């Protein structure tokens, strides 16, 4: 085994440092050599269990070995349930030990802002070279002065629906407004195929549905000043009243107890006709056509379509969950972690993973709208540019720590859940207003 002398080590380190300092990944690649890190440098990357398992498989088998080769560091990928990320992050921050990079949902990085490394030098070049970040994902990860986390993807929610069942009730294209959706859902429920949506305590689908629905009616959490609670409005009240009837007439009432995977199972088992979800239902149906079939034995995926949210009085709005990678402040591998995050987001490395996700993940920057992947399957086309319609929590203010607190307390979700359980709409809105005031007044 060749010995590495002190002089040689300094030379290589110098090259790596200069490369990283001057040209980031481009410099590293130009130097033709992996940057030098202390022997045995390893990065621990904590992520969720991807709803598209092929994505995790790609990371483990293709992307990470390639990154290790390019960067000269060992990368350990650990994946856990999405609902378990918060406790792991909290424990890591409090003990100042744990994964170097931790995935965060939506605006959770705002909760941990004091404990995260500034990743502006990673994000800015990515944004400027890739058409710019979408507003919602920037809002979630930028605190006004610096980037708290590197935006990784949107997990856009679209309404996946059974075309043939909608046709059967005389609805040949997906309803354009909430009124039309309610009318269609009423007919579908009468035929035993209700719409399915969760209003439970679960991180993705519940806020994804409830927030977007409220916004589309003109409801908002706070005024643009980010302090004055504004949820108790005529618009929110109308949305709650509508939801009560909509739920009873058109939705699967079991949805109050669903988690993020429940609607996937309900749809694929032929129980519900439509649900707001990421593309995972369609991707799974396409992956296993023999397992998921229609009543007449055809591949269910062939009967699936995607459509954006119906319009409310204030237009068509989406929540679209986002994911980012937080570089933890306690990490002793800051440089290696930043080099890795830069490596991940180069088009040649992000692209293959993005294509494996088949549209479940939308890119954080606008250039990914032009990726040839979108030409592969017309059913996935509605996901292509939907990120532009996304809004971040805390609207009409910014997705601050307070907004993240409201999100994690499920206050907006529970406002609707209480209504469908029978609480008068006015009381539900007042309850939500009181809870919001407690959060925003401190």
């Amino acid at each position, binding site marked *: 085994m060749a010995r590495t002398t002190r002089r040689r080590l300094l030379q290589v380190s110098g090259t790596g440092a200069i490369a990283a300092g001057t040209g980031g990944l481009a410099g590293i690649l130009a130097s033709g050599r992996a940057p030098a890190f202390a022997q045995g440098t390893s990065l621990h990357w904590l992520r969720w269990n991807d709803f598209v398992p092929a994505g995790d498989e790609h990371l483990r088998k293709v992307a990470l070995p390639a990154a290790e080769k390019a960067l000269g560091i060992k990368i350990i990928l650990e994946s856990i349930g999405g609902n378990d990320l*918060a406790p792991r992050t909290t424990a890591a921050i409090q003990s100042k030990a744990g994964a170097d990079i931790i995935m965060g949902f939506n605006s959770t990085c705002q*909760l941990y802002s004091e404990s995260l490394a500034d990743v502006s030098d990673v994000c800015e070049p990515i944004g400027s070279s890739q058409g710019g970040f979408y507003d919602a994902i920037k809002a979630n990860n930028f605190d006004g002065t610096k980037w708290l986390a590197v935006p990784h993807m949107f997990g856009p929610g679209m309404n996946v629906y059974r075309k043939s069942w909608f046709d059967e009730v005389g609805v040949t294209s997906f309803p354009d407004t909430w009124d039309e959706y309610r009318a269609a859902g009423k007919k579908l429920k009468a035929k035993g195929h209700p719409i399915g949506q969760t*209003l439970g*305590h679960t991180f993705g689908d519940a806020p994804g549905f409830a927030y977007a629905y409220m916004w589309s009616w003109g409801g908002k959490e706070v005024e643009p000043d980010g302090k004055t609670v504004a949820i108790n409005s005529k618009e929110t009240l109308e949305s709650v009243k509508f939801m009560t009837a909509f739920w009873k007439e058109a939705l699967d009432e*079991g*949805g*109050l*107890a669903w988690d993020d995977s429940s609607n996937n199972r309900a749809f694929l088992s032929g129980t519900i006709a439509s649900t707001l979800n990421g593309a995972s239902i369609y991707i799974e149906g396409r992956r296993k056509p023999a397992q998921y079939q229609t009543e007449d034995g055809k591949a269910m995926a062939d009967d699936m379509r995607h459509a954006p949210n119906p319009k409310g009085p204030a237009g068509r709005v989406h929540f679209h969950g986002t994911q980012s990678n937080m570089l933890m402040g306690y990490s002793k591998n800051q440089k290696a972690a930043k080099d890795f995050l830069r490596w991940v987001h180069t088009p040649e490395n992000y692209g293959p993973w993005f294509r494996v996700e088949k549209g479940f993940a939308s890119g954080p920057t606008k250039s990914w709208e032009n990726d040839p992947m979108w030409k592969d399957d017309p059913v996935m086309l509605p996901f292509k540019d939907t990120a532009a319609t996304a809004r971040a929590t805390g609207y009409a203010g910014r997705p601050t720590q307070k907004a993240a607190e409201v999100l994690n307390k499920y206050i907006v979700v529970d406002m609707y*859940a209480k209504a469908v*359980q029978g609480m008068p709409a006015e009381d539900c809105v007042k309850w939500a207003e009181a809870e919001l005031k407690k959060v925003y007044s401190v």
Partner: protein
Amino acid sequence: MASARGTTIQDGVTFFGRVHKKGGILEDERWFAAALLSPTAVLLGLFIAYPFFEGIWLSLTNTRVGVPGEFVGLRNFEKVWNDSIFREAVWNTCWYTFVTTVIKLILGLWLAQLLNRNFKGKALVRAFVLLPFIIPTVLSTFAWKWMFDPTFSVLNWMLFHAGIITTRINWLGDPDLAFSAIIVVNVWRGLPFYAISLLAGLQTISPELQEAAAIDGANGWQRFRHITWPLLLPVTLVVTLFSVIQTFADFQLVYVLTGGGPANATHLFATYAYQIGIGTGLLSEGAAISLAIFPVLMAVVVLQLMYIRRVETR
């Protein structure tokens, strides 16, 4: 070995392989007792006292995740007291503990009586009864979650095919049913603890007392009322004490089954403290919610211990 021990006793005390001469520090009973107690004291201090006092300190500050807080007095307690979800959690926890404890006590006593009889395969049945208590709570609760699943509930399937229901029962989506569901799972899980502990208590009661009473003409209920119950009472109280403490601080079961939903209908102290402290990063408020259990639990424990002492000294 015997002679070596004899020598040791005569000449000194062996402690961690060293022989201490007579008159050494461990010859003094007070020091010896302290030495024997110290491992336990250290463990209790590290894992019970330190977190407890740390929790008290946290609850009096405005600490957030990653941000050391400043002393804010009782502000967190004031905030949680005015929090409607917290009040709901208080009511839920008290009601949950009361109902499950009563049901577990009655069923546990009944099961213990049955298990105390002689029948074929007695040992095997006793072992099986313990199963719900042995299986990790998270695993068994996941199984229950599937059974209560709004779409794929096996309970609904059975009731439907038995012709008892025509539409699905929304086990975890309806607030009352969801609350009943967590009670059922808690009873299922906690019942073996009662049954086996009370069985142990029953076996300490001399059969001669029962026989004598039977000869005197006492029927089954009278024998239970006047012999079994009074003699079993100290054990029952201790078992109930442990159960109340465990149930009051229950977390895993509710977290897995409902996550505190629907709309906070099943939140308990622990799940709500977790949501605030861990989910939202407000560690000090989470600590205040957790500590709010303490006075209630303390009162219950003190009352029960006083009663146990009274029963034992009768």
